[in-house]
């Protein structure tokens, strides 16, 4: 067998087992914080995987991905705000009551994130390269300032949720249950992404990354496909935002800040872009490194910075590429 493939299976297998058993391990170890920490890792991983879809497969380097995470979170936050407040979400053109049900809130948040991504993507995809990086940043900054100025919803202070969203039979307030929900969301998104990458659609997007002109001369209207891919990534980020809002029970504009977009890119690259699993590893590595390093020194960034440079210069394919020895093709 191909060694890269068997390693891929090994990483996937071991990782999955550890993730499945984590709440039990944490309980045995007497450290429930691990559950919180790993929920957070799973959520960031979800956001990073969604970013990998557009960066690693579509070649669209977005420096505004945190905006979609923020939108997803804000939908949760705003609905929760109106629930607490007892006020209607909208009174015109028709009375619209707020909700706290997962089955209502989450799909709505995902849908809204995806639509915003479609809107922003429709404009941004007219450019490419450096200009694309900057225009996505510009839109994210606009949304950031919009969130800051949402006085009703706390402006810069954000919105505090009084509880997590509600799901029949399962209590999301329980950290273990919530952890498994995060895990399920990540696994589903990974599986869908994996299907997507190898489907007809995925092929078109990957082709457009390599040579867009050639794709057009083969007969593909690439713009549409890239836009849909961008929206799907937006939906994934929105879901991550939903989970983030639920986990921290808090939403604020800082979620949309450009440094968060930068962090997501770092996770994707660190883990290995265009691999789907890589970004999961990247997210875990980043957050764990932060957790461990910051325990030793408050100046941990002075080590993280050169580490990132080192990764770029000497470990181009990221953690996943390094694990699989020779590195993998961007397949």
């Amino acid at each position, binding site marked *: 067998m191909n060694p890269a493939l068997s390693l891929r299976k090994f990483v996937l297998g071991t990782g999955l087992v550890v993730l499945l058993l984590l709440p039990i391990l944490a309980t045995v170890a007497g450290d429930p914080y691990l559950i919180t920490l790993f929920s957070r890792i799973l959520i960031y991983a979800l956001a990073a995987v969604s970013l990998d879809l557009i960066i690693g497969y579509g070649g669209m380097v977005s420096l505004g991905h945190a905006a979609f995470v923020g939108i997803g979170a804000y939908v949760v936050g705003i609905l929760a705000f109106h629930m607490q407040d007892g006020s209607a979400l909208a009174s015109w053109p028709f009375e619209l009551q707020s909700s706290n049900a997962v089955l209502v809130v989450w799909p709505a948040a995902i849908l809204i994130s995806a639509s915003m991504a479609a809107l922003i993507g429709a404009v941004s995809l007219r450019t490419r390269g450096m200009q694309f990086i900057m225009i996505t940043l510009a839109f994210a900054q606009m949304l950031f300032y919009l969130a800051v100025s949402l006085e009703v919803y706390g402006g810069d202070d954000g919105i505090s949720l009084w509880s997590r969203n509600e799901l029949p039979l399962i209590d999301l307030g329980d950290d273990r249950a919530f952890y498994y929900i995060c895990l399920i969301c990540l696994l589903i998104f990974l599986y*869908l992404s994996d*299907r*997507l990458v*190898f*489907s*007809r*659609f*995925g*092929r*078109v997007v*990957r*082709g457009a990354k*390599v*040579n867009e*002109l*050639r*794709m*057009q*001369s*083969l*007969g*593909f*209207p*690439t713009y549409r*496909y890239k836009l*849909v891919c961008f929206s799907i990534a937006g939906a994934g980020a929105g879901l991550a935002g939903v989970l983030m809002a639920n986990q921290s029970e808090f939403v604020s504009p800082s979620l949309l800040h450009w440094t968060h977009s930068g962090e997501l890119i770092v996770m994707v690259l660190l883990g290995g872009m265009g691999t789907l699993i890589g970004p999961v590893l990247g997210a875990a590595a980043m957050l764990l490194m932060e957790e461990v390093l910051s325990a030793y020194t408050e100046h941990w960034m002075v080590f993280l910075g050169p580490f990132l440079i080192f990764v770029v210069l000497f470990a181009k394919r990221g953690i996943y590429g390094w694990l699989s020895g020779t590195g993998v*093709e*961007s*397949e």
Partner: protein
Amino acid sequence: MSELLLETVNLEKRFGAVQASKNLSLRIASGEVHALIGPNGAGKTTVIKQLAGEIRPDSGAIRFDGREITYLPADVRARLGIARSFQITSVFQPLTVEENVSLAVQAHKGHSFRFWRPAAQEPQLVLPARWALERVGLEGRSRVPAAHLSHGERRQLEVGMALAGNPKLLLLDEPMAGMGPGGTVKMTELIMGLKRSLTIVLVEHDMKAVFQLADRITVLVYGEPIATGTPEQIRINPDVRRAYLGDEQA
């Protein structure tokens, strides 16, 4: 000559101070191999690009298969049946040979907003791809990533991709460029095999191949056609000899 497939009427294109196409009128019949020759910088690739829809002419018109296509984008033209190969090989290096070709097939099998089924397992993509690979003689290499192909094989693949969509018109931009003599012979045979089943516009420097393959030849100098005719007519045309074929006095 049989019926007209492609016609350009007075195409003009300028890039800054450079006139890339001037007064360019071509009439290409169905089933014909029409070669465009001329010195470097004569605007041959510019013609291909205008036909494929990558750049728009400043004025003039292009008609294909009874339809005005002057301002249609490249992808629409491709679906109408215009395929092209590139001067500098531009296959999708990370993909395998078969994936490259089946991607080309895919463009002609309806929309690609299909997210679920692995494309590699769709017979309606894979089978035509294998057929196209056979036509260009690459059937033995279908699992190899395109990046690992030799230069000549990539050019074959390039043609295979152009063929995969079953086009009516094939635009070949220097298919022999950078090939050794063996490769040139192979490519010439390959194109010879395609003759009659579809219409080909061929841009090529290798005169031996051009005179062997072409039904008619148009000679471009400074973007302007100075002669069109059969290979024999072109060979003896004094203007052509002076301008291009290299029979001059210093």
